[in-house]
């Protein structure tokens, strides 16, 4: 809750600095027939100079209240408009008490519509910079860890087959959708639903490899056509999800639990569980890659498939295992991402895909541990950038970093220095 409040506050602050200041109350939109009016008062006293912004139907205007606390904005047509009161322009000790500072105004039968805000006494929650920073940092770590689950799969698949798998986005969505169907529609307890969803995701990876990727490898299709096939697959699967689940967002059970306070950091039990699961699973993946025979074989195939094949490693088997593990990790990442956003929707994986690619490229294409480091950097960067950037631009920062890294260290942070030109 605090995080959301902070976010909206930040957006409001930045919007205030950028938006063009306006004319007086009785001068805005007088050429139009329809008017939205209001009266800003607190305990009977008119408030002067409170900024009001209006937006809707492709029209926007802003104004300030006059000495009587009144404001009026003419609008070109009847319709629904969003009216926003800028809380920063209220006197100290006054806030919008209920209903929030944004009101949707819809015209009735008349040409005038009045919109009033409920003001009350109180102070806005302002948190000092250090506390905000720590809070965002922990959130970023959480996001980075769940990003890493997906990124390791992308990286392993790239390492062993050379494919930049765009359909990974749909493997992420699959996990969340499966958990949703199992827990909400079939009524299974959530832990069991998640477990089955992860297993089903692994099955999806196995199926995709068996039906599409293995025959294409046999056929000797080059890397770039493979990548375009994965784009087609991503498009087809994504709209298949929309076909069956519609365009709405649903919540998994337990989403939106109350936050617990740890000093400046507020985290829900779900966030804590999410971080715990991510860390345990990542450690297990590390153990698998470093200590087990099949993990070593995976790294060998990643290094040099022909040499690995010559030394008796069953390359096809390794690739099949990589697809299953990668898809299962992506499914788990999807479930955690559904809690983090929060919500399950048909294109949720695609919204995250570019950040996954950014993380993988940042760490070094094809290196599993690079993907982990890259993910945590991207996660931290996305969350921390909201301290300075408006929240709808937080992804922009991460993508800019991606381009800058390629400029100065194209092999990525942990990538080997080799010729990639």
């Amino acid at each position, binding site marked *: 809750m605090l995080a959301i409040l902070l976010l909206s506050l930040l*957006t409001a602050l*930045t*919007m205030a600095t*950028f*938006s*063009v200041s306006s004319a007086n109350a009785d001068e805005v939109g007088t050429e139009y027939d329809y008017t939205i009016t209001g009266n800003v008062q607190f305990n009977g006293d008119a408030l002067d100079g409170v900024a009001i912004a209006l*937006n809707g139907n*492709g029209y*926007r205007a802003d104004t300030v209240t006059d000495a009587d606390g009144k404001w009026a904005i003419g609008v070109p047509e009847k319709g629904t408009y969003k009216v926003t009161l800028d809380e920063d322009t209220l006197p100290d000790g006054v806030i919008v008490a209920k209903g929030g500072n944004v009101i949707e105004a819809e015209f009735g039968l008349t040409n005038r519509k009045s919109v009033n805000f409920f003001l009350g006494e109180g102070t806005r929650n302002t948190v000092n910079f250090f506390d905000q920073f720590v809070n965002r940092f922990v959130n970023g770590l959480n996001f980075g860890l769940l990003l890493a689950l997906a990124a390791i799969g992308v990286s392993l698949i790239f390492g062993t087959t050379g494919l*930049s798998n765009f359909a990974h986005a749909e493997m992420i969505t699959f996990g969340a959708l499966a958990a949703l169907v199992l827990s909400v529609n079939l009524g299974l307890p959530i832990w069991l639903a998640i477990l089955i969803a992860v297993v089903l995701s692994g099955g999806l990876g196995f199926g995709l490899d068996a039906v*599409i990727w293995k025959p*294409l490898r046999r*056929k000797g*299709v*080059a*890397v*770039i*056509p493979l*990548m*375009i*096939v994965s*784009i*087609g*697959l*991503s*498009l*087809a*699967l*994504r*709209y*298949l999800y*929309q*076909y069956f689940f*519609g365009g709405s967002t649903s919540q998994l059970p337990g989403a939106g639990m109350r936050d617990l306070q740890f000093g400046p950091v507020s985290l829900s039990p779900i966030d804590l569980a999410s971080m715990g699961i991510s860390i345990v699973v990542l450690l297990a993946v590390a153990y698998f890659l470093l200590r087990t025979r099949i993990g070593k074989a995976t790294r060998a195939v990643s290094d040099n498939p022909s040499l690995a094949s010559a030394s008796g490693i069953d390359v096809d088997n390794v690739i099949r295992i990589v697809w299953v593990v990668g898809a299962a990790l992506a499914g788990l990442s999807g479930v955690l991402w559904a809690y983090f956003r929060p919500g399950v929707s048909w294109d949720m994986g695609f919204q995250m895909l*570019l950040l996954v*690619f*950014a993380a993988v*490229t940042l760490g070094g*294409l094809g290196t599993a541990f690079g993907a982990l480091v890259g993910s945590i950097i991207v996660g931290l960067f996305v969350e921390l950038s909201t301290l300075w950037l*408006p929240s*709808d*631009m937080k*992804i*922009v920062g991460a*993508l*800019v970093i*991606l*381009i800058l890294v*390629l*400029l100065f260290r*194209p092999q990525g942070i942990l990538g080997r220095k080799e010729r*990639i*030109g």
Partner: protein
Amino acid sequence: MDWGAIFGNAAVELISPTTAAYALAALGLAVHFGYTGLLNFGQAGFMALGAYGYAISILTFGFPVWGAFLVGVGASIVFALILGVPTLRLRADYLAIVTIAAAEIVRLLFTTNTFASVTGSANGLSGYKNEFAALNPLAPGRYGFGPFENNAYDTWLRIVAWSIVILAALLVWQIMRSPWGRVIKGIREDEDAVRALGKNVYAYKMQSLILGGVFGTIAGMIFALPRAVVPSNYQTTLTFFIYAILLLGGAATVLGPIIGSMIFWVLLSFFSGFVARAVEAGWLPFMTTVQGGQLRFILVGVAIMLIVIFRPQGIFGNKKELAFVR
């Protein structure tokens, strides 16, 4: 079942400005991907720059049409330089990831509330058509016949759009027969061999990126003229559709993108018209009209996969001149 309306609506798409815009954008992509072997996944970004460059120049700065046109083209050249400098020396898939990221950056910058006074944020921009309509030499009235009958503005828009497409196609055809084009195709086949001949591969790739990007930008302007500029139109899905058109027609061809765009839009319109009416008529009881609309996107995805696997050279392509390198 009203077959006349279904075929009529599908025929309209044959010469619609949207088809022209997609054809031109696909032609730009043919220069990038088909002839040079550059994996540009940011064509939607170039189109967004064209549409917004044109609309903002007219609405905010009051530029004339040619001025707005130059602003859009200039913006796309700068964008191509920014994209090309870090990535053209790297492997092909790096360019793919960077261009897709850059196109998203462009879209998010046009969507954010921060610059809403200029970009209109998520609502987009409209009301920039008068300047273009004022150049219309046609008298008011109706032109054309049957499904191709339009009012003066729409006819004028179609004439301009398709003239640009034809000029661009002639330019690509000539330029790919020139010494410059032979170097470009050489880069696609074997970059090191071209480098060994003393050619500056990096500069050639950059020129190709700029040329195709400018095509994409002009396509964005054509795309914006019959409708409003809305940022959600310029998602990565747009780029993927243009790839579908390019692969359908043939990646290393001049006519492929144009015919591909016509086939794509006529089929898409026919299919969605047919499914919508079939659902209304109760032929497909397991489906709603909304689901019928999504079915076509599923088919586009499947079509991309099938074309790449079974006919990678497209309809018009030459099997010897395969577009896919490395």
